[in-house]
């Protein structure tokens, strides 16, 4: 078991006033068998009353509405969590076996899957996942700025470049083609100064984490913020607002450190 201190902050600034702003945040870390939230504090500015619910995938959702005009929305969380991977997660959903919005394969990806799956001698789901991840880490180059939050696994695979989110999506496409249920994780990692993404593989009775972008197993240095079929279920903040603004600027800072 490991104790981690975490903090995460987002500053959203609009270049003009907005109003009737409705938002849903998925940034309060999940409470699960392997992850206990000892304490967590959330601050949102401008002040707005919020409600917390848990969505179908088990994520904490913080919903709010700002009717009046405003030019920014800042939110931050600070807290402490205990991570214990000896107590695995078992919250299964059938949808994790089927293609989703971001992970629907095309012919290229199916061909690629057929090519590599015959070479794979491993039987256990997690071992197969490790095999695929090894291949991907040689094939796909980690590069920022070539993909964005709308990039699908098919598009990233075509580019052979991407960031952690893209590595996760391609892995999910391959695993689901391989009839292995798997899911997308958004979270924080000690090794990464930004928000991170990895995947979890269902081995028949429990979830096992795998970090395809770093091609390594997930240890107790990872904090899960949200989980789902793909990025679409896990976006940290989604919002709809009205106003004459033309662009918004988002600054994210985060940190995850071992507590001593």
């Amino acid at each position, binding site marked *: 078991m490991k104790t981690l201190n975490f903090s995460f902050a987002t500053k959203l600034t609009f270049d003009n006033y907005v109003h*009737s702003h*409705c*938002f*849903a945040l998925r940034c309060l870390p999940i409470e699960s068998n392997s992850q206990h939230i000892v304490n967590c504090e959330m601050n949102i500015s401008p002040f707005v*009353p919020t*409600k917390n*619910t848990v*969505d*179908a*995938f088990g994520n904490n*959702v913080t*919903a709010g*509405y700002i*009717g009046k005009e405003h030019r920014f929305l800042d939110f931050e969380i600070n807290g402490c969590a205990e991570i214990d991977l000896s107590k695995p997660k078992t919250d299964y*959903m*059938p*949808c994790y*076996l*089927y293609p989703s919005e971001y992970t629907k394969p095309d012919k290229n990806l199916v061909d690629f899957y057929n090519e590599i799956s015959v070479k794979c001698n491993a039987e256990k789901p997690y071992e197969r996942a490790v095999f695929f991840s090894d291949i991907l880490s040689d094939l796909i180059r980690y590069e920022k700025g070539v993909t964005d939050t709308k990039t699908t696994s098919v598009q990233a695979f075509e580019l052979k470049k991407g960031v952690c989110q893209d590595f996760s999506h391609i892995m999910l496409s391959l695993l689901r083609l391989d009839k292995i249920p798997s899911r997308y994780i958004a979270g924080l990692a000690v090794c990464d100064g930004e928000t991170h993404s990895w995947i979890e593989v269902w081995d028949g009775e429990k979830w096992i984490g795998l970090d395809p972008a770093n091609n390594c197993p997930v240890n107790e240095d990872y904090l899960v913020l949200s989980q789902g*079929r793909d990025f679409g*279920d896990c976006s940290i903040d*989604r*919002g*709809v607002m009205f106003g004459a603004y033309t662009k918004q600027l988002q600054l994210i800072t985060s940190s995850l450190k071992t507590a001593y």
Partner: protein
Amino acid sequence: MKNQQILPITNADEINNLLRRYGVKFGVYKNGQFKEQFFPFDPIPRIIEAEKFKVIESGLVQRADALNKFLFDIYHKKNIIRDGIVPEDFVYISSGYLPQCEGVTPPENIYSHISGIDLVEGKDGEWYILEDNLRIPSGASYPLIARELTRAASPDVFSENGIVDNRNYAKLLKDTMDFVNRGGINAILTPGRYNAAYFEHSYLAELTGAALVQNDELFVEDNMLWQKTYSGGKTRIGTLYRRISDEYLDPLTFNPQSLIGIPNLMEAYRSGNVAIINSLGNGVADDKGIYYFVPKMIEYYLGEKAILKNAPTYLPFYEEDREYVIKNIHKLVIKDVAEAGGYGVVFGSDLSEEKLESFRQTIINEPRRFIAQEVIDFKDLPILENGGQVMRKADLRAFVLSGETTRVWASGLTRFSRNPDSFVVNSSQGGGFKDTWVML
């Protein structure tokens, strides 16, 4: 039936003029242009005798109840899959299945408040179910207002024939809305005048006393749904009737591009603060692939035999059915379960031998993608045309309302095709409608 001789309604023009006067229209887009069309009414009613209707009624109640239980089961324990009645692939590949609804319980456990079940009467006198529509089926308002007008225009017809009054639809709907209401007013959400069902929305709002609302006047705060008022205040909404698709209903949970939805409506719904008519996720139960399993569902959940028959259907997914389909493809109608509406429907008789052969291969390669049905030879109904009567294909959409109890509206929307060769009875393709009389 009290009288053997049914008095006909002869003043069709008068009634169509009245329908015009009362604005009974639907919107259509043709060549990118919006037009409001009048929905032509044919005065010769479809007549269903009391005894026959009793059978249909009990069959429909049974079906709607089983479908509601199925939806609850799918989004909770999934017993029907575990017990091997419905193969899981048919559920989870369906585009109507929404994982976001897992574990979410709608008020009073009702998913399909209004079930529009399409039937046809075969030449053998037997009624067959064609499809279930559990995502706010529309059309009830047309026979509803037509009845109001025909009674005014031809009172004798109604005094001479014993016809069940169908004008209780608004009451049935209001009862359902009130039963599931979570506090606040009832509201009908409409995309506006340019929506095909706009007449229906506005007329049902008038008759049920619900507020007719558009998305930009609604917002979610404290996980409750509100309507903005002109004095800067807000009115709580406890039941929301809507026709827009699930995928567009909440841009923060579903399609983020949606401009017609209400952000965070899903939060209010999941918190149990608003009833949504019909509930979200119903598409998994009115899917073409799931249709096959409805009679099995009735047995599984209710322990009863299905009273109304499905059109004979085969699933190539099962080996025995696959063999039959491959052998008889030329006389079957094949439906692609992934396609919605009238798309992906192919009549084997329309295909060349070459095309049939390649279709057979497709079915063998992707057996789960298709269902096959016998073509039902359904009874034609007389309609008035140029002063005479001609026979045309017609179906019947029955409306089942689920609230405190499950009730069938003693009427329905009978749609007919104008084109003598067409099996497609669709209002946007120039068809018309008839009143449906259930006899006392």
